């Protein structure tokens, strides 16, 4: 009869993991040159990169002209950034009176300072700063940008333009669409039939029509239907249109996040005596919003780029003002530079949002499992 008894008397020591192919050479050997086919493909890809990148880099940086005051300065055959440089102020501020531009700068400086305060960890009074950004700052920004009191000259919104207009539209859209979206999503999941059907109809209506239609309706159709004296500002109408449109999209993103929260979380919150709003604010939404970060930022990025559609109703955002500049007879033929500049500015903002969202996802990660 065989003996089945086995006993371990001395415990095994902890050993380091096996040495893998580390370092640059090891990585390259494993990922780029693991066999003949891969080596050939790697070399081919490098060649493609070479023939694509060298002319681009030379056009953008090496053979380009940066300084000057007219098109005559562009002699080297590459990109003529002189066009962008000369019109830079207009691209940034539109037709805002030159003497008042400090008001735009001050507004955005204040905003950046507050947002940085909120984004940097370990700074005190975050709650207070957040309240100021959301409640006080919009009023302040309105008086700074539009004027009309405190001795500030009124600057009509049709003079606004360029990147500052794009940012105003995008920031208003982003800041307003998120809370409306959350409310609509909660409404859509509500058990109250009237609230629920209102939210469903609202979301399905706004998601079903193109943003261009919304903007056209706001700028062209609306004035035909409302009496002359009720006619309000075109920019304001566009903003309202964008916010209503984007809240519907945001609502669906938020709803997706809400559905991912396990039922046990609701039950635990209820069992502790939290009422509906406290349960949502302290338990459900923080978890749902964390899950929704990629979706929310995706919507924000789309919204940011969609603001350029306001050009069709005659508002001069960054894209529109660059296009207008291209038609200047003195600067004909620099459309590539113009569009490249617009693309670059949009990319910087969108990439920044994307990176910050990844950072947030890491920061909110609190261990494993969602129970």
């Amino acid at each position, binding site marked *: 009869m065989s003996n089945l008894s086995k006993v371990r008397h001395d415990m095994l020591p902890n050993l380091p993991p096996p040495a893998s192919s580390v370092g640059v050479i090891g990585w390259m050997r494993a990922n780029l040159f693991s066999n003949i086919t891969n080596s050939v493909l790697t070399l081919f890809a490098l060649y493609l990169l070479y023939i694509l990148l060298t002319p681009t880099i030379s056009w953008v940086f090496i053979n380009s002209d940066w300084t000057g005051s007219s098109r005559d300065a562009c002699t080297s055959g590459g990109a003529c950034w002189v066009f962008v440089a000369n019109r830079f102020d207009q691209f940034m501020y539109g037709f805002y009176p030159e003497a008042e531009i400090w008001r735009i700068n001050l507004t955005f400086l204040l905003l950046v300072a507050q947002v940085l305060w909120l984004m940097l960890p370990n700074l005190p009074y975050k709650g207070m700063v957040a309240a100021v950004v959301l409640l006080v700052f919009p009023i302040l920004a309105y008086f700074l940008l539009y004027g009309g009191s405190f001795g500030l000259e009124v600057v009509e919104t049709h003079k606004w333009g360029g990147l500052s207009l794009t940012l105003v539209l995008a920031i208003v859209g982003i800041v307003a669409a998120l809370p409306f979206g959350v409310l609509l999503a909660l409404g859509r999941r509500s058990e109250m039939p009237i609230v629920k059907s209102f939210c469903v109809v609202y979301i399905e209506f706004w998601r079903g029509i193109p943003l261009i239609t919304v903007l056209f309706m706001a700028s062209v159709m609306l004035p035909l239907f409302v009496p002359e004296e009720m006619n309000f500002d075109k920019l304001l109408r566009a903003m309202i249109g964008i916010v209503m449109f984007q809240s519907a999209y945001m609502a669906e993103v938020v709803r997706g996040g809400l559905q991912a929260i*396990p039922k*046990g*979380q609701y*039950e*635990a*919150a*209820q*069992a*502790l*005596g*939290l*009422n509906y709003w*406290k349960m949502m604010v*302290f*338990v459900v939404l*923080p*978890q749902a919003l*964390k899950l929704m970060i990629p979706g929310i930022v995706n919507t924000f990025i789309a919204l940011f780029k969609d603001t350029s559609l306001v050009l069709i109703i005659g508002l001069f955002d960054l894209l529109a003002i660059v296009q207008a500049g291209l038609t200047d007879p003195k600067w004909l033929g620099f459309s590539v530079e113009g569009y490249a500049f617009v693309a670059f500015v949009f990319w910087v903002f969108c990439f920044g949002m994307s990176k910050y969202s990844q950072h947030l996802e890491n920061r*909110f990660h*609190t*261990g*494993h*499992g*969602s*129970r």
Partner: protein
Amino acid sequence: MTTNTTNSAAARELNDELMVELRGVNKWYGQFHVLKDVNLEVRKGERIVICGPSGSGKSTTIRCINRLEEHQKGDIIVGGTTLNNDLKNIETIRREVGMVFQHFNLFPHLTVLENCCLAPIWVRKIPRKEAEAMAMKYLERVKIQDQALKFPGQLSGGQQQRVAIARSLCMNPQVMLFDEPTSALDPEMIKEVLDVMIELAQEGMTMICVTHEMGFAKTVADRVIFMDKGQIIEENDPHNFFNHPQSERTQLFLSQILQH
């Protein structure tokens, strides 16, 4: 297994005050009749264990007590308040009734301490400092005070369940409901949770536990209730319940779970 008689109802003077009262409670899921005329009276300080096969309605019964499930017929009275559709009423009852779940249901985005303080601060309106001090006291009682600043995801199942118990206790509940608190735990962790529950029972907490831990029932229960198919089949003190079960269904159930 020995029965700890010093703790059973016979030896203790129980208050006559009714804590929880279920009178002719009926509930349906669609056409399915899950609770059939359930009657139960729990006195202050009494420890009830409800057992029975899965789908017998034991979880549903205790989930009706704090309105996680809605009963359709009959009366549920908790601490003198009759449960009805009035939200204020439901919230009053929920404040006084603590619940521990099979899957712990801790809030993963909050630390252990924040989990415990959330309801005292926002429901009981206790100042943060006091709430934190109280939470630490209860975390100490469940022997987990050194994990207070960790997130639930960093704890073991047994530790999470002890936090969940502490979280409920922070609301100073009159009654504690336990819904299979050890069913999702590894065997090695069951004991640490049961120890906490036994200690709680010895301190005089009114408890209603749905559990398969028969050892726990024998040690601390004043009364064991056996449910099957949505009805209470048999209820008795633990000694008689385990040694002289009356109903055939109870005998079958006990023979099946006590075999190993």
